[in-house]
């Protein structure tokens, strides 16, 4: 028997387990998934919690429910991987051997990385919204917020779901209008980038949407610390942004066991080949989803498209054959823009988000890089698709690799990413 060990039972790990359970001969392989708990959050749902759209039980389900019978689920904290011995050590002393390892432990907000963030104002006037605790705390804080400076802030790229802070800003602006508070609130968007997004065409479009909504944008702002006493963000070049309510996206980092195992880069992401997701150091280790260092968005859609390519590659790799699939960094993200509308962006390593129609060229029904109600309905419907189709590993009729069909190419294509 050979053993596939998957670290992390989130979006990527669950899909890998379920898809390979269908494809690997059961008399030759055992599949084991390790996670610390049995709570599987639908992470895109966190964005809506502060505005009362979802209750917590709608976005957190039992992890084991989504993992196929026949796959072993082990609960425990991972201490480290010994890649030369092909063993994973858990903190309680258990040891799990493997023939092949898939690291799918994602990325996590790390408010501890910015001095002062976890100080006296944490979860009082300083909130994240990528955790259930932060999102529910923020809902209560917004209930009592009726005037002042609301600041939405990104510490450092890359972050999980890079459009989420923009979406939060759009939703907050619409929510303030609905509450009749918009004139009493100064809304500011603070980013370390030199524009609103990482890609030029989308950045200009989204930047225009912030301008229309009278949101002040502060760019090139690398936060050094949060001063909880004066309620200001302080940058390395000594600029300050005052806030009454701060909604921050902390530094995102991969799991600490990755660093302890000597498998990570400076943010604990596992260096892999960006087309095959095979570790650059060990040919028995893959990293999928947010846990890897591929230059793609850290997003569930990227994990989904990557898993589609990975599964066939994995079967070739374990048979001693060269891997023939090449992941292209395909990402596909709904961007909520308030007032029951949303944009959709579709892009990959080489092509930035462009206007057009999706998934059927020239027809849609979704519109790319344009605010429509249909896109918003798509975003809401996706929660059901996530639980019922995506996680169980059922086929979704969307091609894994990005297509140029239906996209409008600008006169002077510019595929450069912006700098950190």
């Amino acid at each position, binding site marked *: 028997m050979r053993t596939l060990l998957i670290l992390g039972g989130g979006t990527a790990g669950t899909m890998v387990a379920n898809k390979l359970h269908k494809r690997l001969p059961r008399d030759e392989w055992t599949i084991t998934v390790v996670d610390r708990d049995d709570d599987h959050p639908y992470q895109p749902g966190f964005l809506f919690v502060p505005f009362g759209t979802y209750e917590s039980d709608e976005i957190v389900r039992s992890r084991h429910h989504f993992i196929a019978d026949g796959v072993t689920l082990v609960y425990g904290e991972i201490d480290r991987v010994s890649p030369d011995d092909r063993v994973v050590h858990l903190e309680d002393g258990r040891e799990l051997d493997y023939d092949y390892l898939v690291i799918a432990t994602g990325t996590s907000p790390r408010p501890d990385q910015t001095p002062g963030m976890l100080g006296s104002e944490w979860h009082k006037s300083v909130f994240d919204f990528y955790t259930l605790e932060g999102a529910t705390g923020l809902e209560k804080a917004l209930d009592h917020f009726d005037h002042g400076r609301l600041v939405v802030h990104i510490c450092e790229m*890359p972050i999980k779901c890079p459009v989420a802070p923009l979406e939060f800003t759009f939703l907050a602006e619409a929510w303030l209008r609905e509450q009749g508070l918009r004139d009493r609130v100064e809304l500011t968007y603070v980013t370390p980038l*030199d524009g609103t997004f*990482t890609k030029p065409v989308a950045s200009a479009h989204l930047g225009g949407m912030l301008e229309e909504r009278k949101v002040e944008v502060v760019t090139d702002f*690398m936060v050094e610390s949060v001063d909880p006493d004066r309620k200001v963000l302080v940058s*390395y070049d000594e600029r300050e942004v005052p806030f009454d309510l701060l909604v921050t996206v902390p530094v995102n980092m991969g799991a600490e066991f990755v660093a302890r195992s000597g498998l990570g880069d400076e943010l604990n992401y596992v260096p892999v080949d960006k087309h095959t997701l095979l570790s650059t150091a060990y040919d028995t280790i893959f990293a999928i989803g947010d846990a890897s260092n591929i230059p*793609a968005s850290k997003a569930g859609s990227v994990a989904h498209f990557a898993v589609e390519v990975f599964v066939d590659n994995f079967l070739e790799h374990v048979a001693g054959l060269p891997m023939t699939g090449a992941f292209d960094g395909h990402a596909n993200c709904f961007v909520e823009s308030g007032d029951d509308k949303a944009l959709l962006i579709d892009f990959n390593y080489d092509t930035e988000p462009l206007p057009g129609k999706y998934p059927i060229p020239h027809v849609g029904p979704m519109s790319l890089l344009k605010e429509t109600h249909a896109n918003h309905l798509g975003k809401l419907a996706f929660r059901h698709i996530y639980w019922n189709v995506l996680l169980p590993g059922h086929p979704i009729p969307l091609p894994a690799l990005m297509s140029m069909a239906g996209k409008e190419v600008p006169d002077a294509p510019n595929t450069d*990413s*912006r*700098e*950190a």
Partner: protein
Amino acid sequence: MTTTTIDGHTVHVNEEGFLTDPSEWDEDLAKSLAAQIGIDLTDEHWKAIRFLREDYAAQGETATLRRISTVGGIPTKQLFVLFPQKPAKKLAYVAGLPKPHGCV
């Protein structure tokens, strides 16, 4: 991509003026590139530039500010003093490397 001449060096650059071929760079050119953006290179600047060049040669991509601080040992605060306002971009420009792809 176009060709430009800076202080007698003929190099290939993109629309923002970044070198597109790192092998066309030398330390003499770095002084000219720095002068273009109003920076007079000191030993501290050179430490950062040399780290960026060596790291690029090994990794194939331009280091982010975090990597320069955690791996290169130069604090982010100091990078903002050496290359004001946009240290990642200015440092890559002077070092003849592409802008870092830290963010996607």
